[in-house]
């Protein structure tokens, strides 16, 4: 049974035209490296011409407006100042670094390990790269941009049984004030292999435009993939981070997303469970403040029987901020004995914030256990008072409670340093 | 009343009962004891007709008829009652409606019309008193929010109402404190009669102080390996199961 097809009404003519024009402007300048993405690229090109551009009546884009993307900064401009940026202090990791889409060899430190291939695609001379994960580029216009426009990305292949000894940091730094960059990472884990990938996006100073990073991954039988993702954007850079992951029998995929800051951030993990015993954990936390919109659109597709999944997404929204959670769990006809759990908890702090939550279940098998829950509320006043009665100021009390609230969704990160850094950034974020 | 001859039964591909033979006459109380994994619960499930268990050979006759040929509902209506070790909750279905449906099922089987409202109420009050089941619990949904002791008492209440010929008590004492145990045992004892037999499945001897058996069997590795009087239970209490294991070279 195929995954149910999403109904896609066409976009208003003006929107479609604006989208296509913008795509033209950012598609130009894509270099030879992208031919490496073979079939995915040609499929995506067809899709771009045919699919509707995201618009309000498209369910998956209902809460994420795209006008600012299409009217934002366009083609590549000279990169900005060459700042030294340390993504995760204290993290001893292999690293591949890109600045404004260009690979920075000097700042990188790829692993040299038997059985491990880890290179930027721009330096890959082998055959075409497979696309893994759900073929989102065939059904979503925005996702289709990636194989067409992506100039570079990481190619990571781990042989059977290889557990990489250190985390791998894929760091993109946006500096230019008028850039649109597209990265495409590919990760393939052989049977029993394991790796902790940290995907970190940083926007420096005046960086503006659109940045899209797509990570496609295949988790072989019994393999383990942990992805810790953070978006450290700014007011003007639109960030679209998408993962398409396939998990085979007894494999495990754990994806944690932390949105530290950003005016327009959309995170989209898509996971397919393809073999008995496969498991996926999707966690996410965000703290949007005034003029920030953080949206999470997750998809977990239980294709076969005996798979499990667990999702915990939490947000604390301050005045003027927007958080959206649209979680979709598909359980296909033969996916008996599925156990899927999904929970979304949101805090609204101060007035003017907005929470949109749409936890969806689409279930075609019957011997399953699926539950989801969603709550929206404010901080518990009793708890706040308890802090204050111990001499802690209200604002500090609230901050500590928010920290504790968010930390509960951060339990399965690969690297402790990642979690520490995320917590530090949240603690320091001005929210008033 | 009950004749089990050389019964072999499996769960999936795993054989659990390996040639179990047991004869129970009317009015007798038999205790079945044995270490974990010996097949005690499997025996209860097979007798009650639960799905997922396959009888590979042997026979079971109940009151002269082949029991294995009947499905679970028919066995129940014929007079077999299983008091579950972990009684399940059924939200939204009141204890009263549940019992009425069960009682009417049995009455239909023996050619009686459905029970009238006043008659039913009288029966219920009578049997609740027997078991000490609180009136409030009667009106709740089946086992919903009941404590362990209350669930077990509910099982015995149902048994009192349905008046079975063969009652199988599957580890009825598990999870009960001394007081609850005594109340449950009193209910069972009140039900003893020359026309009714009991199979009391238990891991510990303690219950048998209250429900005194006529015959004690030891079930080990899917077979009855020893049979004796109530002193056998006390001996097991003192010495455990190892001595039997060695003796039988199981």
């Amino acid at each position, binding site marked *: 049974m195929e995954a149910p097809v999403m109904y896609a009404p066409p976009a208003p003519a003006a929107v479609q035209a604006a989208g296509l024009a913008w795509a033209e402007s950012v598609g130009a300048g894509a270099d030879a490296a992208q031919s490496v993405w073979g079939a995915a690229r040609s499929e995506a090109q067809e899709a771009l011409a045919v699919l509707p551009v995201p618009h309000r009546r498209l369910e998956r884009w209902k809460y994420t407006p795209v006008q600012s993307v299409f009217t934002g900064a366009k083609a590549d401009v000279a990169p900005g100042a060459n700042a030294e940026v340390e993504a995760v202090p204290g993290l001893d990791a292999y690293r591949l670094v890109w600045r404004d889409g260009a690979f920075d060899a000097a700042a990188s430190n790829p692993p040299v390990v038997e059985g491990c291939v880890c290179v930027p695609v721009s330096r890959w001379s082998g055959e075409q790269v497979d696309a893994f994960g759900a073929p989102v580029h065939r059904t979503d216009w925005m996702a289709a941009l990636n194989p067409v426009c992506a100039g570079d990305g990481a190619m990571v292949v781990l042989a059977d049984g290889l557990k990489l000894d250190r985390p791998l940091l894929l760091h993109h730094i946006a500096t230019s004030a008028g850039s649109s960059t597209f990265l495409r990472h590919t990760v393939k884990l052989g049977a029993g292999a394991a790796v902790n990938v940290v995907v970190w996006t940083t926007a420096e100073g005046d960086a503006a435009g659109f940045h899209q990073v797509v990570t496609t991954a295949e988790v072989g039988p019994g393999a383990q993939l942990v992805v810790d993702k953070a978006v450290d954007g700014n007011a003007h850079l639109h960030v679209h981070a998408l993962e398409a992951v396939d998990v085979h029998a007894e494999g495990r995929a754990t994806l944690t997303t932390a949105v530290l800051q950003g005016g327009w951030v959309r995170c989209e993990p898509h996971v397919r469970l393809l073999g008995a015993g496969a498991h996926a954990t999707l966690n996410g936390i965000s703290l949007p403040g005034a003029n920030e919109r953080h949206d999470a659109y997750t998809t977990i597709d239980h294709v076969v029987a005996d798979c499990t999944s667990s999702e915990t997404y939490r947000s604390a929204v301050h005045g003027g901020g927007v958080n959206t959670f649209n979680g979709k769990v598909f359980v296909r006809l033969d996916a008996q004995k599925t156990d899927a759990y999904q929970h979304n908890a949101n805090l609204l702090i101060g*007035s003017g914030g907005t929470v949109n939550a749409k936890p969806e279940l689409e279930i075609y098998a*019957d*011997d399953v256990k699926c539950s989801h829950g969603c709550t929206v509320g404010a901080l518990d006043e009793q708890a706040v008072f308890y802090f204050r009665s111990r001499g802690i100021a209200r604002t500090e009390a609230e901050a500590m409670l928010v920290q504790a609230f968010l930390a509960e969704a951060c339990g399965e990160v690969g690297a402790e340093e990642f979690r520490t850094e995320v917590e530090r950034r949240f603690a320091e974020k001005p929210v008033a | 009343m009950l004749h089990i001859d050389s019964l072999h039964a499996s769960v999936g591909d795993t054989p659990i009962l390996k040639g179990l033979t047991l004869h129970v006459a009317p009015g007798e109380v038999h205790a079945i004891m044995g270490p974990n994994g010996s097949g005690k619960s499997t025996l209860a499930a097979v007798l009650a007709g639960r799905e997922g268990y396959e009888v590979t050979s042997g026979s079971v006759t109940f009151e002269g008829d082949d029991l294995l040929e009947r499905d679970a509902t028919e066995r129940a209506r014929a007079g077999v009652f299983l008091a579950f070790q972990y009684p399940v909750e059924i939200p939204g279905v009141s204890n009263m409606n549940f019992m009425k449906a069960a009682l009417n099922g049995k009455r239909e089987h023996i050619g009686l019309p459905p029970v009238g409202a006043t008659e039913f109420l009288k029966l219920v009050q009578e049997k609740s008193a027997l078991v000490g089941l609180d009136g409030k619990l009667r009106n709740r949904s089946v086992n919903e929010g009941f404590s362990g002791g209350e669930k077990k008492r509910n099982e015995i209440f149902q048994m009192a109402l349905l008046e079975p010929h063969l009652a199988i008590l599957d580890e009825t004492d598990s999870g009960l404190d001394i007081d609850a145990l005594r109340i449950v045992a009193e209910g069972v004892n009140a039900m003893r009669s020359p026309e009714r037999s009991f199979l009391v499945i238990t891991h510990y001897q303690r219950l048998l102080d209250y429900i005194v058996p006529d015959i004690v069997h030891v079930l080990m590795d899917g077979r009855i390996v020893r049979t004796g009087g109530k002193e056998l239970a006390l001996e097991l209490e003192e010495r455990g199961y190892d001595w039997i294991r060695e003796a039988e070279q199981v």
Partner: protein
Amino acid sequence: MAYSGDDALLEEVTGTPYAYGFTTDIASDKVPPGLSEDTIRAISAKKEEPEWMLEWRLAAYRAWCAMEEPEWPHLAYARPDYQAISYYAAPKQKKTLNSLDEVDPELRKTMDKLGISLEEQKRLSGVAVDFVMDSVSVATSFKEKLAELGIIFCPMSEAVREHPDLVRKYLGSVVPVRDNFFAALNSAVFTDGSFCYIPSGVRCPMELSTYFRINEAGTGQFERTLVIADAGSYVSYLEGCTAPQRDENQLHAAVVELIALDDAEIKYSTVQNWYPGDAEGKGGIFNFVTKRGICHDRAKISWTQVETGSAVTWKYPSCILKGDDSVGAFYSVAVTNNAQQADTGTKMVHIGRNTSSTIISKGISSGRSQNSYRGLVSIHPSADNARNFSQCDSLLMTSTSGAHTFPYVEVRNPTARVEHEATTSKIAEDQLFYCLQRGIDEEKAISLIVNGYANEVLNQLPMEFAVEARKLLAISLEGSVG
């Protein structure tokens, strides 16, 4: 996975003929099929409507022409050909009836078959019945008794003539003409329905009810109901439907508007048992209904529904909690079997302060059906201290049916508390075996468990309705009548 006897049980269910499938042979006065301004003028003339009503209809028709039929990903159905439907069919008989003796005997027989013999109703429960058949109301009882209290309960067409001020004030105030495609269609061609007005401070002493029937082939049913509860009043309204067996699909696009003024309460209960189509899904009713209520200060509206029929169901009874301290509730059991499709749910819109809403939805899917819950809880920035609790559960009876949940939660006020929970499961083996071991046969066991599952909703129905509803639940899932 399927437990033993599953297939046999299901065969019984699909094999059961629709109990209410029959037609009354009464010469009908039909307007030729097709929809145009002329059709509307013809309908309005036949009903002897005042000018303002015709203008209102025409404006709605023009709006409809400019609208597009909606598409939903989880409903697949053959689009009705709007030009092939006859929009008016009135059984030939006298215009006003003072007593039952004047009712056409064929009609009386129909009413008897439906089990709503007015005699019985009068004697037992004192329910006032406003019987609607094929778009014209035929019998009304208890009008005098209600009139003493100042309660108006009459067919919509009568209300348009006798109480134009009330109708003009409230018609379209909760469901505007342009709200959606089917509401616009209904506004243009509605032929009848119920109108109910409860004066200030009056508690309606009996349940008000209405029965529908769709009789003629090719006749869409466009009922329009308006219930107004003035300040401090109370009314409980029952809606129950049956329909005859037919080969071509029949469209039902009704609009129900409820207005609860300050401190008023409206309880609206529906048991819907329309022809669901045959085992292949052919020929059943399309039920596309817009139902909405608006609550003023301290008012309360609760929707309770048991949906077991129709080939395709699309309805979202909703509450607009405009007034401070207002309360909205939605209780629903939706059963789908064979090839039925349901996309149903509710919208709770919190606007005033201290509002609260409760949503309890229990879906049961069997056969190859698809059962979707689609709900919206929207908390506006002005809605201080809003509270919502939603529980949406799905019970899957077969491995070939689908159960889907699409809740939309949109919160823009930080003092709100919203909680939503959903679970999907099948009947547990343990529960089933427990019943079997107590001598309850499988069919009855399933009936008990399913009724228990739906209990929270069924308890919300008025007594007489609850009995019918439980029976209906059993019939629609088991095949044998208890």
